[in-house]
């Protein structure tokens, strides 16, 4: 395995300097954002490194659960920022991401694919929660914009005696598909166009490619299941907020 230290990181920074130079040369106007990005990503990742070292060192199940809970809460608020038009979007994001994560991680733990150790649960939870967050945000945002821009279609269905669920079903389907699309595309090209993060990380850390592939398969399926559960649940929870109990469109 390659020995990684701050010297190697400093060398990597030269690549970011190259990006800044290119941005300035081509007048992209992204130099400031790149510089901030370099600084923030370094600070955040190093801080996370220390936090993980600390949690791994504790070897405590409550500490692992607390860390996962914090990750889900942060992800919920991040997703809700993109769904500003939906009342209490953070709550629907939280419930959807929590369910998606608990179902998938819980199953993996229950059948002993992984054990309740920080080094397994936290990285897997991070990938699951991160992808679920993106899916949940996209689904809620898409639902709101589609239903708002297709008000005549929804109200026509309601006026013809359909209930809120039937009237919004076409937009529910579109939104969930849109939320899952990134993951579905990833599954189709994985290993051919790109080597995913978990697998690349393991190979870089010295694991055999075959073992890394098996882990990646598990991770990929876990994320897909979590994204599906989160997307469907976020859509159901968000769509209900757009209708009154008397099946009236309220947005």
């Amino acid at each position, binding site marked *: 395995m390659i020995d990684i230290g701050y010297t190697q990181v400093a060398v990597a920074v030269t690549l970011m300097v190259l990006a800044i130079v290119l941005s300035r040369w081509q007048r992209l106007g992204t130099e400031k954002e790149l510089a901030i990005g370099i600084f923030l990503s370094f600070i955040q990742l190093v801080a996370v490194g220390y936090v993980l070292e600390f949690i791994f060192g504790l070897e405590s199940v409550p500490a692992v659960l607390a860390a996962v809970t914090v990750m889900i809460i942060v992800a919920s608020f991040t997703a809700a920022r993109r769904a500003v038009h939906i009342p209490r979007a953070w709550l629907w994001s939280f419930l959807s991401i929590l369910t998606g994560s608990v179902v998938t991680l819980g199953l993996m733990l229950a059948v002993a694919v992984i054990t309740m150790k920080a080094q397994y649960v936290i990285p897997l939870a991070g990938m699951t929660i991160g992808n679920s967050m993106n899916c949940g945000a996209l689904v809620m945002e898409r639902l709101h914009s589609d239903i708002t821009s297709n008000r*005549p279609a929804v109200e*026509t269905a*309601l006026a013809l*005696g359909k209930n809120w669920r039937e009237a919004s079903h076409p937009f529910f389907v579109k939104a969930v598909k849109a939320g899952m699309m990134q993951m579905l595309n990833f599954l189709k090209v994985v290993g051919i166009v790109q080597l995913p993060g978990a697998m690349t990380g393991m190979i870089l850390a010295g694991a055999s490619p075959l073992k890394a592939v098996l882990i990646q398969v598990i991770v990929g399926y876990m994320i897909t299941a979590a994204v599906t559960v989160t997307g469907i649940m976020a859509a159901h929870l968000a769509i209900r907020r757009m209708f*009154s109990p*008397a099946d*009236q469109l309220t947005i």
Partner: protein
Amino acid sequence: METSAARSDGTVLSADNLTRTVATASGDKRIIDSFSFRFDHRGLYTIVGPSGSGKTSLLRLFNRLDEKSGGEVRFHDRPIEQYPVTHLRRKIALVFQVPYLFPGTVAENLAYCCPVKTNPEEAFSSRYLHLVGLEPGLAGRDAATLSVGQQQRVALARALVLEPEILLLDEPTSALDPGAAKTIEDLILKLNRSLGLTIIMVTHNFSQALALDGVSLVMVGGVMIETGRSRELMARPGHDTTRRFIAGDLR
């Protein structure tokens, strides 16, 4: 302020002190103010008034597409809230000013609310197309290729599939040329007289109310200022605003 309908046959729908208030940037605004009226079974009513007088808002309260802020609406002498809303909307069908036809054929639009499996599809479509004066051959046409007049008729036919007792029509001829408008007016008279449907139609065109020869309700600023047989209102308007509206000074 109440009046007997053209053909008194018992009250089918009544409103008592009906009010709707909506929040606007400049504070709460009462868009329907203390509306009271009794609509008789098999009656033909036109709600007339200048733009922004609350005509469409009133229709939307009758089938609960919007929620009232105060007062009461009764259907067959029962508050409309006591009916399952999907059932209520089938009994009090609304056809919008700009009809929305779902993607697909005319036949598919007609079958939208009806389990066509129990009907021979062709006979089913023909029956309703015939009712609104369209050729049965139109059933297989893509709904998007129809003219505005044809779309309005298909929307009417689709509402008739629900077998409603009351038909709410929101300016059904506003986008049509005079010739096409006349055929829709004839159709409305036929539906009222032959099928015995109670019809409540919104129009900003008083000459249309005259052509239909029913009872007119004059709305201004959310308030019903006057009501009576259209011809009587034309001959002896009891309110200066009604006179100005009939004369075309108010739009």
